[in-house]
């Protein structure tokens, strides 16, 4: 139910329209506005009209006639209409749109006894199109002519069979909810029934590698035909029905139950090696698949059904104590199986998850409170296993299988409320433990000593949380935590770590707001190692040191009710160092002969990059009927993806992080007599990439709107 509610919130909550304020209205009146906009846009530079522009990634647009490079958008209609009755907003209809490819809307009807809600959203994005721009043939250094033949010869040539399509995916969401309120249920609680459908359509750029024996000819010729890509259709939908019953009998306690069924279905063609290679010119070396190889599925996506039950209860005792608990269980069943699974007799794919929590807090004395929370969750892979000839630790097995994972969280906290400066000081202890049941390969597979994935993680933390308002208008917040890992199971676990988050804000009587913050998240883990041979086995420790720092300030000033100014800046720095290892053979080769593998520490690797975000803006009511607005956004990324040998080997677009995004927005509102308003707007967006200069490009957008308010 949360998803449905959230969706309706996205689609439906008060779409703001600057310049048109919420009127104070009386019962029986209808208020709102309708806006109709004509827009012109034009892209410059970039890869041209045939390929994706970076600026299209999250803001894909097609003008009338489908033109993406230069286009007109006419009659883009936004509206917000509502009727007030009985002391409430009785009904509301909203729509907001940026283009034909990005719009959403909602409707709501509300009485004392019932609430009916419906909403939709449509968004087309082109993330896969940008990924395509980074495909091997489009990046200098994306292929390596120096290689020929053998198992790595395919690095020499990449065959793009996709026809250079513009890749994009459209997501459509529809949702309806009906809620019976306490007035209809004898003040016992609420009952909500909902349905939501999410569908996606479009296409993605999908690379793959043929096997060495899939193509005829000599080794060198075969190798050059192996690395390829195809244009993959996206056609999938998820339907979700839900019921939520929340009871509060006589206000004694809250009881909550939710049931949801979520069915996901993909209608995409089951791509196989033969159908993606059919009709493609392989020249003198056509595909020659061994028995069964031609039907090998590519990126198969299973249809599935997720059934979830949730129950919860909360009891509040006055204003001083509360106890809460809940349990959830979900079962994910696989409904569609690949032809490989069918052939092997694999017919049960199932993931079971359980979660439970219990929490309580109480203000024992007026100046001191305590709180505790215990949480438990488990994920169990109850799929058919082992499956002879398909998924069997004695033969075809590589990575360790996560059979079951159990995680517990515990937190205890005491809070002191001194009688000064609205201060609260909390000291707490938290602990998270994860137990993993893993199955490792016996024959061909990665054994435990060659894996940086362990069966146990146990991390404790001690923290201090301070909130204080030492002076009128001053707000100070601090959180500091120290982490200590007794056992580490994944490399991102904190064997040791520190968090510090500090923010200080000041709101002056004049309306000036000043806020600053600083944060650091530091994690180190050198508790994991690869162990190989020759005997005596030597452990090669992996070491990860990660530091994420950020700082920034925010200022805003409203010199009068007719003007407002804001200025924000945020800096964030990422520094992560790890060791880079190579091996003489693959880690899953010859698992029964652990002395055959040698791990070599090639070098210490460092990834370092920083981001800077600056935004400033303001609006002013220049005259009684004129409002002007402006904003500027700058986002800059600078850094190195890798150092040393790896960094030197990477092509520039992959090694350097050096891009800047500028966004300028200007608007002018002119209020005509009566309830009409005319708005002109101009947007200029410019993306500059110094590491991959062909991505550099800009976009101009002009808009003219007419607003009718009621």
């Amino acid at each position: 139910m949360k998803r449905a509610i959230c969706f309706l919130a996205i689609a439906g909550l008060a779409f703001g329209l600057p310049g048109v304020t919420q009127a104070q209205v009386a019962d029986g009146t209808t208020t709102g506005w309708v806006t109709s906009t004509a827009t012109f846009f034009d892209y410059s530079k970039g890869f041209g009209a045939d390929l994706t522009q970076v600026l299209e990634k999250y803001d894909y647009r097609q003008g009338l006639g489908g033109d993406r490079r230069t286009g007109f958008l006419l009659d883009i209609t936004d509206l917000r209409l509502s009727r007030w009755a009985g002391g409430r907003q009785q009904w509301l209809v909203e729509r907001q749109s940026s283009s034909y490819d990005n719009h959403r809307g909602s409707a709501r009807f509300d009485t004392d006894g019932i609430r009916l809600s419906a909403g939709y959203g449509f968004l087309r994005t082109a993330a896969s199109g940008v990924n395509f721009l980074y495909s091997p043939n489009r990046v200098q250094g994306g292929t390596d002519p120096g290689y020929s033949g053998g198992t790595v010869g395919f690095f020499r040539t990449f065959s793009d069979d996709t026809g250079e399509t513009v890749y994009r995916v459209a997501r459509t969401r529809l949702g309806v909810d009906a809620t019976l309120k306490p007035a209809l249920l004898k003040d016992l609680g609420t009952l909500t029934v909902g349905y939501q459908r999410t569908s996606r359509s479009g296409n993605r750029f999908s690379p793959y590698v043929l096997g060495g024996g899939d193509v005829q000819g000599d080794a060198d010729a075969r190798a050059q035909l192996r690395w390829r890509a195809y244009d993959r259709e996206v056609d999938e939908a998820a339907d979700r029905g839900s019921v939520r019953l929340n009871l509060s009998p006589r206000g004694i306690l809250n009881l909550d139950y939710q049931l949801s069924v979520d069915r996901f279905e993909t209608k995409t063609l089951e791509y196989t090696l033969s159908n993606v290679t059919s009709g493609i010119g392989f020249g003198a070396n056509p595909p020659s698949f061994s028995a069964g190889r031609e039907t090998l599925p590519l990126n198969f996506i299973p249809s599935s059904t997720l059934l979830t039950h949730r129950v919860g209860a909360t009891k509040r005792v006055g204003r001083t104590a509360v106890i809460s608990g809940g349990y959830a269980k979900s079962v994910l069943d696989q409904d569609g199986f690949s032809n490989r699974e069918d052939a092997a007799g694999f017919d049960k794919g199932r993931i079971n998850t359980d979660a439970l929590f219990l929490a309580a807090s109480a203000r024992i004395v007026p100046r001191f409170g305590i709180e505790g929370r215990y949480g438990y969750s488990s994920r169990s892979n109850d799929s058919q296993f082992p499956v002879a000839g398909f998924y069997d630790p004695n033969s075809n097995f590589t990575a360790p299988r996560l059979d079951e994972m159990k995680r517990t969280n515990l937190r205890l906290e005491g809070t002191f409320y001194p009688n000064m400066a609205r201060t609260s000081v909390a000291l707490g202890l938290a602990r998270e433990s994860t137990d993993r049941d893993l199955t490792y390969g016996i024959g061909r597979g990665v054994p435990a000593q060659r894996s940086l994935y362990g069966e146990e993680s146990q991390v404790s933390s001690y923290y201090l949380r301070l909130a204080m308002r030492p002076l009128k208008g001053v707000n100070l917040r601090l959180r500091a935590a120290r982490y200590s890992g007794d056992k580490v199971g994944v490399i991102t676990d904190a064997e040791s770590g520190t968090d510090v988050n500090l923010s200080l804000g000041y709101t002056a009587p004049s309306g000036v707001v000043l806020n600053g913050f600083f944060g650091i998240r530091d994690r180190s883990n050198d508790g994991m190692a690869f162990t190989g041979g020759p005997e005596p086995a030597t452990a090669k420790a992996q070491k990860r040191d990660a530091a994420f720092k950020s700082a920034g300030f925010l200022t805003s000033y409203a010199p009068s009710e007719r003007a407002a100014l804001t200025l924000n800046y945020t800096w964030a720095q990422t520094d992560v160092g790890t060791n880079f290892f190579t091996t003489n053979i693959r880690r899953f080769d010859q698992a029964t002969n652990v002395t055959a593998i040698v791990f070599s520490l090639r070098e210490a690797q460092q990834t370092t990059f920083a981001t800077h975000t600056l935004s400033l803006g303001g609006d002013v009511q220049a005259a009684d009927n004129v409002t002007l607005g402006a904003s500027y956004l700058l986002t800059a990324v600078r850094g190195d993806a890798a150092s040393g040998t790896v960094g030197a080997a990477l092509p520039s677009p992959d090694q350097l992080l050096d891009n800047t995004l500028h966004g300028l927005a200007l608007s002018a509102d002119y209020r005509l007599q009566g309830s009409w308003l005319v708005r002109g707007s101009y947007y200029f967006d410019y993306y500059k990439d110094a590491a991959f200069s062909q991505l550099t490009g800009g976009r101009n957008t002009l808009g003219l709107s007419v607003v009718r308010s009621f």
Partner: protein
Amino acid sequence: MSGRIRVVAAAGLVCLMTAVFWEAAESMGRLGGEGPAVPSMPVYAAAASAPVCLACHGGSAYAGLPTFHGDCTACHSGSDAHLAGPSIMNIGKPEAADCLACHTSSPALMHWEFGPHARGDLSCGDCHVVHGPPVQESRSVADRAMDPVSVSCLGCHQEVQAKLSLPSRHPVREGGLACVSCHDPHGSDGLTQVSRTETCLSCHQTHRGPRAYEHAPVVEDCANCHVPHGSANRSLLELPQPALCLQCHSLADNRHALGAAAGARVSGVALRNCVACHSAIHGSNVDGVLRY
């Protein structure tokens, strides 16, 4: 140490539960004894205290707004002192507990006390405009496409606001989704974190499986590789490839161009994009090394 901590923690939790029940028993007789009076039913703008208050505040935004919050003294304590000497310093502002006194049947508020906003000492009025629309409307020309709830969130969460402008991000600025699509601002009940991936998979169903061949760190926690708000790296990755993958994986000389042709050198072609070959990185129903 771990065993001792478990014992201490369990004992602490038991003590806490006992304290809560003790508190419950003790306070049965003093409900309503603290804070403002709790109205027995929703009241409208014509409530008794409103005319008195509006005699001074009538020219402001409080007048005539249809609302359930029209009885001023139902939420504001200290009215006697305020009437005797009007000052912003002697009129009580409602805390979250005051709001919860009426909003008892809201499922969304069941776990408010255990959420990060409550624990951060925030009250309802820090986000909600009680006397007007539930969330403030955006004024910035740059934020027009964003839903107003997210605008409100980002007013405090400045670091997140910056991340939502990075080259790879969730399209919150474009209005494609909102903060509340993933986060529950009223306090998560903790049940959405079964595997920490459930929230992500509620939209990214393609990756939920089941997969015969799983990538274990993927099914355990999406955040092992991805940062959800925004990243300088493609696909919301915390680190760029190959650095991200090489944290856990070694490279085999005989498969990744180290010991084969071209002088056994490291090839940028192999390093620059691991998923160009291992495209089924989130799991496969066919292939153990996640190529198909």
